[in-house]
């Protein structure tokens, strides 16, 4: 093995090295979430703006851009999970016996359910990709922009997708757990990167909480406004065939 390979292996095998990988990949994923939320919020600008944005994503860098982004995000996501699972295994082995009288002094609940909030987010991401990216539902896949039938109607798809109460419930639970995960995770990134000091610790904690709350409001505002009927209904033939939309129209 060459020296670079040895260095990387040594880094991966060290507790702090693996945590640094979790922190850096976590930071990348937070960046993606902020961008994703900002893009999603274009739905409030109307059908044309959101569909323009979706079209831009699919055509930037001659269609390669979205694949570079997807591969990067997937790589960070997988590395984040693999490193975390390895750390959790080591942690459980290190604390091989429990106190008969167990107590917690100051660890917040969000920090104690990180693995469970993380696993829920993994399940949600898989569902979300099949729901809105792969579009297994043929009604959602067939939606076309009324002003430009050559392109997909992302706006209509989102509104139609959130007509199912079970989808909305799963979305609310997953986003809430994601934000719980981030409320601890973002501050942890700064600690792991060695940036938390006596001068920065309050600001870092508030930054983590602030970003988590911002993402929670931003992501959940969409199904909420769909539920209260504040967004324009999808008006494509495929969407009109959906029974829930029919009921809403009648």
């Amino acid at each position, binding site marked *: 093995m060459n020296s*670079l390979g040895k*260095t990387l292996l040594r880094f991966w095998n060290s507790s702090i090295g693996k945590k640094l990988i979790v922190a850096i990949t976590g930071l990348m994923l937070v960046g993606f979430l902020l961008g994703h939320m900002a893009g999603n919020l274009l739905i409030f600008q109307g059908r044309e703006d959101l569909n323009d944005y979706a079209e831009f994503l699919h055509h930037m860098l001659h269609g390669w851009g979205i694949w570079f982004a997807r591969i990067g995000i997937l790589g960070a996501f997988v590395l984040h999970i693999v490193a975390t699972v390895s750390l959790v295994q*080591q942690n459980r082995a290190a*604390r091989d016996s429990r106190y008969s*009288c167990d107590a917690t002094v100051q*660890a917040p609940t969000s920090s104690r359910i990180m693995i469970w909030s993380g696993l829920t987010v993994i399940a949600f991401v898989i569902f979300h990709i099949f729901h809105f990216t792969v579009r297994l539902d043929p009604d959602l896949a067939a939606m076309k922009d009324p002003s430009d039938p050559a392109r997909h109607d992302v706006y209509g798809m989102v509104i139609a997708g959130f007509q199912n109460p079970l989808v909305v419930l799963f979305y609310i639970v997953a986003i809430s757990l994601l934000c719980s995960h981030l409320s601890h995770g973002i501050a942890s990134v700064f*600690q792991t990167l060695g*940036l938390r000091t006596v001068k920065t610790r309050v600001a870092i904690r508030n930054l983590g909480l602030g970003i988590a709350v911002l993402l929670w409001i931003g992501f959940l505002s969409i199904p909420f406004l769909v539920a209260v009927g504040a967004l324009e209904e999808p008006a494509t033939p495929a969407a009109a065939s959906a029974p829930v939309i029919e009921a809403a129209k009648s």
Partner: protein
Amino acid sequence: MNLTLKVWRQSSPNATGRIETYEAKNIPSEASFLEMLDIVNEGIIESGGDPIHFDHDCREGICGACSLAINGVPHSKESGITTCQVHMRKFREGDTIWIEPFRARAFPVIKDLIVDRSAFDRIIAAGGFIDVRTGSAPEANAIPIGKEDADTSFDAATCIGCGACVAACKNASAMLFVGAKAAHLNILPQGHTEKDHRVLAMVRQMDAEGFGNCTNQYECEAVCPKEISADVISKLNRDYAAAAVREAVAD
């Protein structure tokens, strides 16, 4: 005071341990926690039983020998003190108190409430020192050190190596201990020369001993009898990352 004690009893390192119940009767409220155990042990010895074994030495919060988890919290829920500084007036008449050893794979139980904390000694031996020429003490002001650095280093140096940080951590991580010991020396000019070697060697020894990883819950900080801040863990992370990069470049 009359109390009920739920005490971990384990006859040897490989024996199966169990919780046993003892009645602690007529305990003076001004007694320390360890004195209360002494009184209970006198009763056990008089009745021909095997007394409860527990670690202790100075009994004034300096040595770091006492190592009990009281109601699931190392050194009890009182902040900034060791077990020997806990007094019975902090409990109420009729209380049930759970007394267990510090729990971590790297701290195996020797007997009852006594655990083997020699893993800490091996971490110190790996790099928690400064190579200096022995002889008479140097002149105190020969190397100027800023007040802030001196204070930060001193705060880290107050670690007594009791192991409460490991015992409180949900992952049995020793990051607060290693962070304090490394920061104590890394901040000072005398320790700066060997900083990279120190951090890499101590962290690798910590990993080899089977301690867990820090998940930034700061339970360690909350129970530390010397109230050492988790900021030393942040510094350890920073120093380790820089040392690892410099080591990779040098390879």
